[in-house]
């Protein structure tokens, strides 16, 4: 599997890098993330890879040289759980900019006609475990440009609808014609949600399962079935004579080929519940949401389980235009107050985490969301790590992504100023060595909307 991926990468690298010149950014501050900051150094990029980086690096003669004086080079940001590029998930949209609306945990209804209500687990309700984001992704999605303007070069994109929504893929945020060029890892694992696909939720008419306990038992049954399916298939493969052929089940195939699961958990109760559930299912799990990660008990559960989490950056907010005499419950106010401290708390506790966009897709909202975590105690370095090397490590691609090191993929962000600051201007980003410059009107990272237009010698994509 890994060989295949590597092969694919090499192939892709050649494909877009073969006849391109090198780019050298010199005299820039280089924040490598994996090592110490280089106050004044050079990064050389060729064939979509980082050819060299350091204080005294020789610049190839054919390189297009960028004078990085006053600039900072960072590894490209990675969205650890994204729907950018997934069809039909852009409900919040860059245009709305409010950062409220669709979330990865409650995706909007699909346009597909409603299936008849399921009568039990055998009908495989809200299950599309075999789907891979890599096969669905639309490179033309406007959010890809928008995210790039905020410094994101990579995203773990997941199908998010249904109990077994499908398999996520790690993709580079290129805008091109062939989605395949974007893919770094075609299958990251299985996205599990506790919401039925197409919304609608429970009720008597919606079919099985309608209640949370039904959903959990459904997921449990699927894993039991998958285990049994594997046994029977193995037995049949060994000796098919005299044995009835096991029926092909794509839902179980999809589950079996997923090497890890993503489980939703926001409240501490859910974190506790899902940790137990993953242990019972014997599946390596990553927990997403984690808005109550700040609670002492959340920390304890996560630490005891040596868990890895993805923290939503869509921090809960007070409803707008609320009755002035209305008072929210204490607990709600507490969560609103404390949720943004979760990254800092988990960092302190030594729990592995990454941050994710959760429906945010404008540079302004993304920048503000990161800033809020920083304002609530997360250091800039740790914020950067949570959006670069940490997600790379979580998905096992730290050997090619997430930091500025020789031989890694040339995903870089070049700024004037500190990356998560209000007034910082993103000069350009490199994705697989391709240069994208944010559209002028969107130039400040703090600006609204905006697109990145490919430019420069390397920018025009084939």
């Amino acid at each position: 599997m890994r060989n295949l991926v590597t092969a694919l990468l090499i192939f892709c690298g050649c494909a877009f890098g073969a006849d391109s010149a090198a780019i050298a950014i010199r005299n820039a501050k280089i924040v490598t993330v994996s090592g110490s900051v280089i106050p004044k150094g050079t990064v050389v990029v060729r064939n979509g890879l980082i050819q060299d980086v350091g204080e005294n690096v020789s610049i190839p003669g054919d390189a297009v040289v960028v004078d990085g004086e006053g600039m900072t080079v960072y590894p490209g940001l990675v969205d650890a759980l994204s729907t950018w590029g997934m069809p039909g998930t852009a409900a919040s949209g860059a245009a709305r900019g409010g950062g409220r609306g669709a979330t990865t945990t409650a995706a909007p209804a699909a346009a597909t006609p409603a299936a008849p209500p399921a009568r039990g687990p055998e009908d495989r309700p809200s299950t599309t475990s075999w789907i891979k984001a890599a096969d669905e992704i639309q490179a033309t999605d406007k959010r890809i440009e928008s995210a790039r303007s905020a410094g994101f070069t990579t995203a773990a994109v997941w199908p998010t609808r249904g109990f077994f929504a499908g398999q996520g893929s790690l993709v580079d945020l290129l805008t091109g014609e062939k989605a395949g060029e974007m893919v770094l890892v075609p299958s990251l694992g299985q996205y599990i949600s506790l919401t039925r696909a197409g919304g609608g939720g429970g009720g008597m008419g919606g079919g099985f399962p309608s209640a949370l306990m039904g959903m959990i038992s459904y997921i449990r049954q699927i894993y039991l079935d998958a285990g049994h399916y594997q046994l029977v298939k193995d037995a049949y493969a060994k000796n098919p004579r005299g044995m009835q052929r096991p029926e092909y089940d794509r839902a179980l195939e999809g589950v079996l080929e997923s090497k890890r699961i993503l489980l939703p958990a926001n409240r501490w109760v859910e974190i506790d519940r899902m940790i137990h559930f993953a242990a019972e299912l014997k599946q390596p799990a990553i927990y997403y949401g984690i808005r109550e990660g700040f609670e002492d008990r959340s920390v304890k559960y996560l630490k005891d389980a040596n868990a890895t989490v993805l923290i939503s950056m869509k921090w809960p907010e007070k409803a707008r235009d609320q009755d002035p005499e209305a008072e929210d419950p204490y607990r709600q106010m507490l969560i609103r107050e404390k949720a943004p401290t979760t990254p800092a708390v988990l960092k302190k506790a030594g729990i592995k985490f990454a941050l994710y966009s959760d429906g945010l897709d404008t540079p302004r909202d993304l920048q503000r969301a990161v800033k809020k975590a920083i304002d609530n105690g997360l250091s800039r370095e740790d914020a950067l790590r949570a959006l670069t090397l940490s997600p790379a490590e979580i998905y096992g691609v730290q050997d090619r992504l997430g930091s500025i090191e020789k031989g890694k993929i040339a995903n870089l962000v070049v700024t004037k100023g500190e990356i998560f600051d209000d007034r910082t201007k993103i000069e350009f980003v490199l994705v697989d060595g391709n240069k994208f410059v944010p559209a002028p009107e969107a130039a400040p990272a703090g600006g609204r909307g905006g697109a990145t237009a490919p430019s420069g010698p390397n920018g025009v994509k084939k």
Partner: protein
Amino acid sequence: MKTFGLLIACAIAACAAANDTFFIRGVDVYPVTGAEMKGVSVLVQDGKIADIGAKIVAPKGMKIVDGKGLRLYPGMIDSNTELGLSEVSAERVTVDTGELGEFMPQLKALSAVNPESEHFPVVRANGITSVMTFPASGGRGGRGGGGSQYISGQAALIHMDGWTWEDMEINRSAAMHLIYPSIASRGGRGGLANVDFADEIALLFAGGSAAGTFTEAKRNYETQVAKLTEFFDNARQYQKERTANLPGFKRDLKFEAMLPVLEGKVPVAVPASRERAIHDAIAFADREHIKIVILAPQELGKEGPELKSKNIPVILGRTEALPENQDAPYDYAESLPGEFYKAGVKIAFGTFNNEFSRNLPYNAARAVAYGLPYDAALKAVTINAAEIWGAGDKMGSIEKGKWADLMLVTGDPLEVPTQIKALYIKGKEVDLSNKQTRLYQKYLARP
């Protein structure tokens, strides 16, 4: 079993004389409006209390009830039910509350009261001799069938016994049930009372509320208030035209029904749970110069002085109720009556229900456990209710000249184990048996 025998004996005795004239001897009388009188006698004549005293003697041949070791209280009054109008609440065909229409002052609960409802004997077996019965389910906002309703009709004060609803009537128009608009946006004090907490948190994570904004809610509210005001304006205009009696004047049943309200003879009874809603309802009553009774408030807030100074009575809901939000103390509902009492507000209790109407005294007792003085609790289920609903001169206490709505009991009537030995409505002893006692006897005897 013993009780049952006694009852039969009483019933037989009652046949001998006029059935609303009798003499109770040696009973402890708790008049509610005065100090208790131990071991006295009570003379009931023609359905009324004729005399009370230690020295009075029974006229010759009069039926005598031995009250030794027993207590005599006025019958209790439930200030909000739908008795007679609703039989099996889940079965719509058996329910006659919640008519359609926005302004329905002409509807009368009384004429839909089914005297044979199984609820009457069940409820009165616990000492409740009269109730207010409302045209819409009072506590539930009166939106039973008709979407947005402003005026649901006339609530009736009735006795718990009678061959017909006319027999049962005390006051067919004791109150006009008015649903004052409220600002219905998301959120109350500490969240929604009836939303699952986990759901609320889920809502929070989903990015806020699905319900409308405050701006929208306020706009709706203002439109509704304008509409209600317009109806009152029109009713007043009608009142003028009626007085002028100009040619071409046409009778209008809705406006006719509003006249006693406009004249201040009949109060509007308005459900108002929040402090703001109470305030708004009172402001409306002030503007319209009408009498008002507040139903089922969930908080007192700063409304105490206003309620007290304007002499506005309040019908409290069940104390057997959950706190009204997540953050409220666990004994919130139990403590509320005490708060109203301390603020000097005149209170009575309503069960806002039929099935729980018989637990009226226990709701009052629960308030006592959490701060309401005992005497105030007792008054709230007797004399206060009578006064609020305009029958204070006829009932609600044991006083000369009042109806003999009485209960003869073994102890404190607010305590569960207390047994009712006899019950009188207008001096007539009423049957304490009911569907439930009959089924009990029948199946207890099953071999």
